[in-house]
Structures are given as C-alpha cells and as structure tokens.
C-alpha cells in the first residue's frame, strides 16, 4: 500500500505544475527529516545530487531516498509515514479523480 502511495505521488509529480509542484516539494523534506535515517555521508551525497536538479527531479530523488529507508522503520513510524504520504498524495488530484470523489459522495 505504501508503495502504491509512492507511485501515486510519482504520477502526481509528472502531472503537477506550478503551485501544486511547489507544495509537494515543500512537504517532502519534512518527511526526510522524520523518516530518513541514513549515514551522514549518504545524506551528503543525496544532498549534492538534489542541489543540481530541478524541483520535479528533486522530489523524485527525495521519494527514492524515502523508499530506500522504508523497510528500516518500525511499525509506529510506518503508520505515521503512511499518513504523511497520504496527505502529500492529496495535494494533486486530477479532474477525473475530483469528479469521481464528488459524484461518489452524492
């Protein structure tokens, strides 16, 4: 399920533009602080990689980094992580998804 949410965010990143992309980008570093437990050398290398990338690519790199760390989290962190990811995946919804959600709710 978590992998599915990751994939949703990846798909959102491809479709998002402007404000939405910035919102996703602003939300992801918070997850890195909370759930990324890499060594400082790995963190430094990741940071250098991200420095030379555009916003969209940075988001993808952060997601890859988070995905690498996911298996090392305990159950409580996994649950909390899942909620945080869900909140980010809700930033971008396609027209189709929005219509479906509103029609379903009627």
């Amino acid at each position, binding site marked *: 399920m978590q992998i599915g949410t990751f994939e949703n965010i990846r798909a959102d990143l491809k479709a998002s533009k402007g404000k939405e992309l910035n919102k996703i980008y602003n939300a992801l570093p918070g997850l890195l602080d909370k759930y990324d437990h890499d060594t400082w050398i790995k963190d430094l290398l990741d940071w250098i990689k991200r420095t030379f990338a555009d916003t969209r690519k940075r988001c993808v790199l952060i997601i890859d980094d988070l995905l690498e760390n996911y298996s090392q989290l305990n159950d409580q962190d996994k649950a909390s992580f899942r909620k945080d990811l869900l909140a980010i995946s809700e930033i971008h919804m396609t027209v189709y998804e929005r219509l479906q*959600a509103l029609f379903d709710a*009627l």
Partner: protein
Amino acid sequence: MLYKMNKNASHPILKTVLRGIAIFVLAVVVFTGFYFSDCPALFKNHVSFNSEDFQFKAYALLILYRFIFYFSFPLILAFVEKIFWNKNKYVSLLIEYFNVQFGVYALISGVYYLFAIDRGLEGTVIFGSADSFLFIASFVFSLILKKRFPQNLDINEESANIDK
C-alpha cells in the same frame, strides 16, 4: 429577468421549468465550489469509519455536502419566492420545489446513465445515495403535507380557474 418570467409564468409547466433551471444552476455552482476545495480528497480518503485515516472534519463536510444537495435548494428558493413573488404558504412552495428538485436530479441522473458517463468514471454512481432519500422526501412532502394544506396549492387554484 427571472422575476418577470416567473411572474408571467401562468402556465404550470413554464413555472416548473424555471424552478428546475434555478435548482440546476444552484447545483452546478455548489458543485463547482466543492470541486475547487479540499473536499474531493477528504471525501475520498477520510470518511470511512473503519479506517485509520478517518477525520471528523471530512465526515462533517460530507454531511454538509449532502444536506446542501438534498435540502438547501428547495428551502432557499421557496423562501425567496415566498418573500418576493408568491402569496402561497411557504410549505406549499416547499412541496413544489422538492418535487421539481426530484425531477431535476432524475433528469441529470438519466442523462448521466444514457450517455454512459458512469462507465467512463469506472462505475461511479451519481445520486446513488440520494435515490431513495429523494423519493421518500418527495413522497412525504407531496402526499402528507399536501393533505394538510390543500387550499394553498397552485394546482387547486389552477383547477378552480379552469372550472370558471
């Protein structure tokens, strides 16, 4: 313009059509407002009781959303018509508006299924939860309340006019 048209709408069908258009326009405006809010995401992920992601805010918004679509249009439009244009009792106007709303939603639903939009949206049902509710509300308002206020109904006045 609507005022003039409504005032001149002596024909019951024209009156009903105008009321139907008013309800349809309001429904579109409200739907568009919800579309651009956070509500679609909230309704999609946070209203299931047995989910960890359940949020009371989302649940309350869903109730509000349904209340607006099921109740508010007849309540508001009947009130406006009563205040500005109509001497009939509010309840009799309310009955008529609920009937018109039932018709408008049935029409929207019919178009939705006729053009197979439900298949396009992966089997999403429109007014699925509203079907029985609207039927019952329409039935209750039409039959039970009509019996209590028969003298206030347009249909009786029109029948009287025809008899003359």
